[in-house]
């Protein structure tokens, strides 16, 4: 594997997130992340799923039982905004460990910085650049960004700060 800079990795993650948001074809926020997981692109039929769970340990985590479909196990009592973001974050694990993700060579590039990569990917999946630019061109401000895109305010702050 070649040496990849952080900027290059983040660019790659933005492009991957764009691919999934393009697939959804959302014209306005919020991005229906759960719909993506329940009706995934054909390449991920065996990799995307959502299972509600009762837990105090995790907000969400991806798991792939041997020889079974992978699923994101998400706490049933999460507020909707936190649930959307947690699902988006764990989607990267589902992608990386899928047959398609392995064929792309994603584990080699993204596993070493998985935590940061997943957070960054989720920020861009839940607030794609095109929708964010449209929001701003209509006069949208930082204050209403989180409620408009229905993402946690801390996440919104980081995403807005990237502009």
């Amino acid at each position, binding site marked *: 594997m*070649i040496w990849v800079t952080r900027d290059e990795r983040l660019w790659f993650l933005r492009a991957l997130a764009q691919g999934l948001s393009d697939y959804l074809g959302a014209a306005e926020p919020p991005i229906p992340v759960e719909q993506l997981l329940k009706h995934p692109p054909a*390449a991920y039929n065996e990799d995307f799923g959502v299972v509600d769970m009762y837990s105090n340990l995790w907000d969400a985590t991806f798991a792939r039982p041997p020889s079974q479909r992978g699923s994101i196990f998400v706490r049933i009592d999460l507020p909707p905004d936190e649930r959307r973001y947690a699902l988006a974050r764990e989607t990267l694990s589902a*992608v990386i460990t899928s047959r398609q993700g392995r064929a*792309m*060579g994603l584990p080699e*590039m993204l596993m070493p910085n998985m935590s940061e990569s997943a957070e960054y990917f989720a920020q861009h999946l839940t607030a794609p650049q095109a929708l964010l630019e449209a929001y701003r061109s209509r006069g949208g401000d930082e204050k209403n960004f989180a409620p408009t895109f229905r993402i946690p305010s801390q996440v919104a702050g980081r995403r807005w700060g990237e502009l």
Partner: protein
Amino acid sequence: MSMHALNQLVARSIIDPGVVQAFSAGKIGEILAEFDFGEELRRWLSSLEATTWAEYAVIAFRAVKAAEVPAVRIQLPSPAEGLLINRSRPEEEQVA
């Protein structure tokens, strides 16, 4: 424009296995033809070799980025400068 095309190509690769299959089969040029790359850059990207698609994408990113940086203009004094008889340089003034 080429970076936009590359973004679209990588974005498509996450949902379309055909992109990675073409890359693995050494036929990425056929996919590149569907995107708005310049002719020379497309030929170069077609000839790139990498172990994985992700690696290819990063090498392509470097190539496209380099191609989009405008050439540095070297600032040389004008040849006409030596013909200006009445103009003296600051260092010449200090000599006297």
